[in-house]
């Protein structure tokens, strides 16, 4: 629970894509704005399907959006 080991750069990617809003991204991938907010904050690790949907929106491979780090 809490901060996940999976981090992402969705916020900056949104900014670089014509300052896309959280709501616009949420509509494109089929979730609520609250979920995009939680993912950006690191409070929720999305399902593999949602991660792929986000990657498709930005037209980038998954590993350029999400990164995984092992912590002790």
């Amino acid at each position: 629970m809490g901060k996940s080991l999976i981090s992402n750069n969705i916020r900056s990617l949104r900014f670089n894509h014509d300052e896309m809003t959280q709501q616009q991204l949420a509509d494109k991938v089929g979730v609520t704005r609250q979920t995009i907010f939680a993912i950006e904050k690191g409070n929720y690790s999305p399902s593999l399907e949602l991660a792929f949907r986000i990657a498709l929106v930005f037209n980038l491979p998954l590993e350029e959006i999400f990164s995984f780090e092992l912590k002790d």
Partner: protein
Amino acid sequence: MSYQEKKNIVSLISTLLIFLLYSMYVFQMYKEGSFHSTDVFSFWGSFIIILIVVSILAKIIINIIFNIIYRITTHEKEPSFSDELDKLIHFKSITVSHYVFVVGFVLAIGLLAIDVPPYIMFIVFIFSGVISDVVRMITEIYLYRKGV
């Protein structure tokens, strides 16, 4: 604060208020002798059934009012569907809620085994139902706030 957090806080307050007001009303009627049933099982059976019906109706009305106020104050439409995060949080909070209810249920049944009057069993039973619902909502608020 998100829509889901606000909605759960409103539900939490309304659940407690409905239970409190309904209990006070029934016990007032009971003291005045409006209930003629001498059968303890019949009395508590009707208490629980009416509480469930009143709670469902009141929650529907409160939810509609809440959505109207939410739209007016935030100029935002409430989410029309539950996505994967909503479902995950719902499943987790329901699990916690079930554990709480099971503890209350076992306690209520256990009281019967040690010859405690049946009305105590019903009170414990009703409280475990209300507390488990309260715990579900608090868990949802916590998980929306802290993450899963």
